[in-house]
């Protein structure tokens, strides 16, 4: 059983997350995804300003992803992200407390303490990495954290793989970069 093979939908096989053990290897795997596959196109999910200037992204399903990912999975991801951002920007008792405490210390407290917003951004980047491994990378997609794009867009990179066979892909997940490149070249049809 090749890791990450999806049943009968015509999806390509991608190195699955099961072969990964720790964070470093996960990063390696996504890097190798990029090396073994070629970037076909990028889709940008824009901001949704209907509720004001708070950070929300449009949940409208882009047509380019139609053949790649199920609509609900995509919408769920975007809605969860929106929920995280709403939590970060929530105006309420705890944010007032943080603001007033910081003001009382002439904002020196920000030199040693992390703000609530920063904590939530870290949660978001962990969530995005998790989603990339579990859902997006097996489908040849890659989400970029909006924070790296100035909170303007969610960038989704769509990859076309060069190697079509699952064995060469799973071989590349543990091997070095050069062998995956060679395997990919040989395996391409």
């Amino acid at each position, binding site marked *: 059983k090749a890791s990450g093979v999806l049943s009968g939908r015509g999806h390509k096989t991608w190195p699955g997350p099961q072969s990964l053990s720790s964070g*470093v290897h996960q*990063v390696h795997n*996504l*890097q190798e995804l*990029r090396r073994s596959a070629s970037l076909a196109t*990028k*889709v*940008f999910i*824009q*901001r949704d*300003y*209907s*509720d*004001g*200037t708070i950070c929300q992204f449009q949940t409208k399903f882009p047509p380019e992803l139609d053949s790649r990912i199920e609509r609900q999975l995509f919408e769920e991801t975007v809605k969860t992200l929106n929920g995280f951002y709403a939590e*970060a*920007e*929530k*105006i309420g008792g705890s*944010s*007032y407390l*943080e*603001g*007033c405490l910081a*003001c009382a210390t*002439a*904002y*020196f407290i920000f030199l040693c303490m992390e*703000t*609530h*917003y*920063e904590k939530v*951004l870290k949660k978001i*980047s962990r969530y995005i990495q998790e989603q990339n491994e579990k859902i997006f990378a097996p489908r040849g997609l890659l989400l*970029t954290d909006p*924070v*790296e*794009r*100035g*909170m*303007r*867009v969610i*960038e989704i990179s769509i990859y076309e793989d060069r190697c079509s066979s699952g064995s060469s892909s799973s071989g590349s997940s543990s091997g070095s970069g050069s062998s995956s490149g060679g395997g990919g070249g040989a395996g391409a049809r």
Partner: protein
Amino acid sequence: MSVMVVRKKVTRKWEKLPGRNTFCCDGRVMMARQKGIFYLTLFLILGTCTLFFAFECRYLAVQQSPAIPVFAAMLFLFSMATLLRASFSDPGVIPRALPDEAAFIEMEIEATNGAVPQGQRPPPRIKNSQINNQIVKLKYCYTCKIFRPPRASHCSICDNCVERFDHHCPWVGNCVGKRNYRYFYLFILSLSLLTIYVFAFNIVYVALKSLKIGFLETLKETPGTVLEVLICFFTLWSVVGLTGFHTFLVALNQTTNEDIKGSWTGKNRVQNPYSHGNIVKNCCEVLCGPLPPSVLDRRGILPLEESGSRPPSTQETSSSLLPQSPAPTEHLNSNEMPDDSSTPEEMPPPEPPEPPQEAAEAEK
């Protein structure tokens, strides 16, 4: 996996950021290019307070109460801290679009407007957005190649789009935007209080001492008093007025930019969709709301291009980190299309004395 200490210098992202900002302390400090007036602000505050602590406070602490210099010191430290925060922090600069994103937006615009024949000027690019049931127009920034979020504006002095752009303040040496507006407001508020305090106690000092040794003798003994009173007098008129104006803006959740352009006033204009309708709520949101961190990542390390170099050990960054747009020689002076309406989009530069009151303040 840790990065080995390499002898050659790492390049940090701030060194390659477009826009006309100056960076200090290896990217930790971010300011505008012209800092002369900021140094003047620092000099005036430090100079006046030094004179006050050196002369008047020594007399008043002994004759009246030691609490006098203590309060003055607290006000002084608070206003310096907020001034430095306002000057040195990222006001909320929106990074420019990377080439892929810019191309994607261009495609969308062409799809909406249709291809423009060669030689004709394309129409100004505007996207309508509904915010709280009011139509707000989002404008396209030609320099940054993005549709600006609502309330954002492009500062022509710093050549950056800034979120919730208020104005560019030369006294502070930086733009005032979403991330540093509260520091700016608290700075002018505490400076007003400090000015009133110093002014009042100078008068008290002169009055008390004159009773003993006469008015002219007092002035001869501490000539600094005259200087302080003059500086405080002129500061009072400008800074206190400015604080009042900004208190009004905070209560209505408006920015200076919107107020000057009259975005929310007038019969056929939309009402301010960002105001909560409640003064307390507006103040709380603007001054004590959550503070978004900077998205510029000034101190991130750029991956080196040479093959022998190590990749950064920080989290993985995408293939192209920075906009490879050409040097901003195009559209430098007008970020809107030339056939746009006559009202300037950006804040006028600080030199002309008219609308931007902040820039035109007669200093202390």
